[in-house]
């Protein structure tokens, strides 16, 4: 794991300050074992066993260190309930939650994602922040305890559309070995009064029953719209229900990790941003140049390419600044369409050429520009507590205002 060394160092520091903390020492031993440092793990276990000869955890880790058997990270918390399914790629298990009170059933698709953060191209900053602010504490209960950090609070991903917020959320579930369920506006927006609240409650209940589970609220600006903007009591009720569920999920239901994504964070009710709810925001930006190159290569991978395309891809990546992943996919699609059209005219398969890509680039404009223009105004006039400082820096650096 990318930040394991940092975590180990932090744990060692904590142990120096509190050498009698056996739980921390055992946890450090576990991490050292996972990091492929069994000798050091064994040494830590010996120290614990010298003080408490019958310590079960230390004995277990020592046994694994001696036997070379690799232990699961951080006592496998959260532990996947059905680890044998993890090997299957994104198995979709539709769950049906039957409501006793009548009305439609709530269908929630529960996935077990196999994607990890390392599968996410680029977004290094996002991955780093996810690891330090969210995944690290999740995976390291001992460390969390040592620093008195609670599991309360969710994470809100925001940024322009098509930049991989949903994919990141899925990868977070993969990292945690948790199930994943996504909730969108259409899942709950049935405006018979009370129906939306019931559906929302059922979706949270489904996530709780399937813990560990990442509950992903897509377009959270619609589910949690600022109540001051709303006149319709039905939607206000949905927002209130969401607040109640979040409070419930964060205190009484361990193992339900609520992530949210939005293109319009400024429309999200401020109550949702209070501590214990979505108190951390993470900006998901368009891919950087290496990531763009990787995305272009991925999208062109199974298409017939002329010899002049390979050297062109890096240049294309350099010329597609602020293009989202979706824009890049569209660009490749447009180039493929042009080549296909030419093939149909001549009756011979003509591969995609660098010229096709060049033309496609002229036709495809980055869809993120409009978002940045709007976002800039909100970042200027609604930047309470500096919440959009990072966005402002990006906009200035890329001259998007």
């Amino acid at each position: 794991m990318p930040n394991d060394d940092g975590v180990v160092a932090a744990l060692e520091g904590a142990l120096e300050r509190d050498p009698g903390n056996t739980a921390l020492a055992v946890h450090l031993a576990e991490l050292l074992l996972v990091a492929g440092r069994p000798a050091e793990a064994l040494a830590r276990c010996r120290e614990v066993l010298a003080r408490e000869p019958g310590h079960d955890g230390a004995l277990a880790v020592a046994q694994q260190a001696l036997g070379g058997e690799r232990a699961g990270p951080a006592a496998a918390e959260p532990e996947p309930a059905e680890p044998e399914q993890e090997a299957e790629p994104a198995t979709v298990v539709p769950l049906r939650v039957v409501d006793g009170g009548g009305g439609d059933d709530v269908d929630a698709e529960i996935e077990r994602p196999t994607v990890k953060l390392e599968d996410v191209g680029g977004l290094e900053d996002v991955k780093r922040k996810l690891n330090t602010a969210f995944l690290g504490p999740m995976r390291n209960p001992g460390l969390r305890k040592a620093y008195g950090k609670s599991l309360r609070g969710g994470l809100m991903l925001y940024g322009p559309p098509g930049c991989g917020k949903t994919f990141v959320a899925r990868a977070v579930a993969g990292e945690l070995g948790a199930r994943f369920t996504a909730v969108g506006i259409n899942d709950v927006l049935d405006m018979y009064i009370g129906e939306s609240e019931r559906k929302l409650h059922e979706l949270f209940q489904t996530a709780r029953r399937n813990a560990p589970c990442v509950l992903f609220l897509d377009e959270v600006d619609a589910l949690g719209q600022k109540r001051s903007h709303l006149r319709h009591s039905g939607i206000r009720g949905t927002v209130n229900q969401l607040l109640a569920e979040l409070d419930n999920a964060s205190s009484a239901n361990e193992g339900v990790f609520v992530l949210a994504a939005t293109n319009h964070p400024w429309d999200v009710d401020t109550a949702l941003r209070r501590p214990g709810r979505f108190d951390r925001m993470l900006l998901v930006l368009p891919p950087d140049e290496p990531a763009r190159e990787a995305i272009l290569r991925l999208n062109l991978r199974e298409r017939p390419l002329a010899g002049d395309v390979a050297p062109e891809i890096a240049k294309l990546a350099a010329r597609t600044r602020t293009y989202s992943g979706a824009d890049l996919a569209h660009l490749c699609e447009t180039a493929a369409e042009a080549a296909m059209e030419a093939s149909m005219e001549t009756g011979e398969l003509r591969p995609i050429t660098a010229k096709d890509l060049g033309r496609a680039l002229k036709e495809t404009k980055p869809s993120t520009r409009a978002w940045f223009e709007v976002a800039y105004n909100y970042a200027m006039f609604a930047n309470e507590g500096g919440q959009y400082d990072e966005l402002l820096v990006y906009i200035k650096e890329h001259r998007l205002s």
Partner: protein
Amino acid sequence: MSGAGARADALVELGRHEQAADVLREAIAADPERADLHCRLAFALEHAGRHAEALAAAERAARQAPDWEWPHRLRAVALAGLGKAKRAVGAAEEAVRLAPEEAAAHEVLADSRLAAGDHRGARAAAERSRELDPSAAGPHHTLGDVALAQDRFGEAEEHYRRALELDPTNQGTLNNLGIAMLRWGREEQARALFERAAQADPADPVARTNLARTSRNHVNGVAVMTACAFAAWLLLKAVVAGALVPAAVLAGVLAAGVAVFVLRSRRRASRLSPATQMLLGDQPWWERIELTSWRPWWWFIPSPIWLLIAIGSFTGGMIEAFEAGWDATSIGVQLVLLAAIVVFARYSRLWLRRRGWISF
């Protein structure tokens, strides 16, 4: 209410007008006779700024239910959006005829009449709307607009403030109150109101533009800019006449004037809010040297050039009058010319604005 209708209403409330329109189109395809669905479609399209399509949907609804007030009200709103104010008045009057106790119909009639230039009619309709629904902010806003259009700034302020009591974050009301203050010469208050309006809806460009212009006027100030333009004119005259020493002195005066201008601008800008400072910082150089309050042909000649022309023609004329021995006719002509320049510079924008050719 049907499922599709309720869903569309919710989507409109969430600001997802296109999605709402899609839901409604689907429902209309299944049940094309439903006037309420056509109305909701018109409403969603109007909010999305697609006035022509909104009008078509409202007209379909009016054909389905000619005795229902809502389709006619929606027609009026769409027609006003398309700039067809007289037809909008006709549609709104029909809505009022069908539902004389409907406050919203009177409010739309007031707005349509105002757009058509009928201030008295607009006031009467807005007052009736206010009587029917005293808790609505809209009629107060419209009454403010009527007073503003007639340059009755105190009255406009009163109406807008009442509207803001009922709807404190209405971006349009905050902005219009700012305009009233600006025209009344209360620039400080106007700037504060434009800033509040921009905060209320940062996506709306109107208040942002107004805030940028008033703040730029404040930062630049007219006195130093006029002095610089005057020095530049004299410098030009001295250079043309080959008077090198006076030219050098004037160049020094001009440089000092520019330095004072820059330093004072920076000091004034530093006292503005961070958002306004950013707004000004984003302006291109030609907007940074602008002085909107002295820009009659604002789409054509930037204000420094305009000031230069005004000062140059006046001083040139006065010099000629001096050379002619202070001939009374020449002096009179020059004074008339100066008055014409000032009147044109200060009031031609007002004249253009009243005709709806410009908005600021």
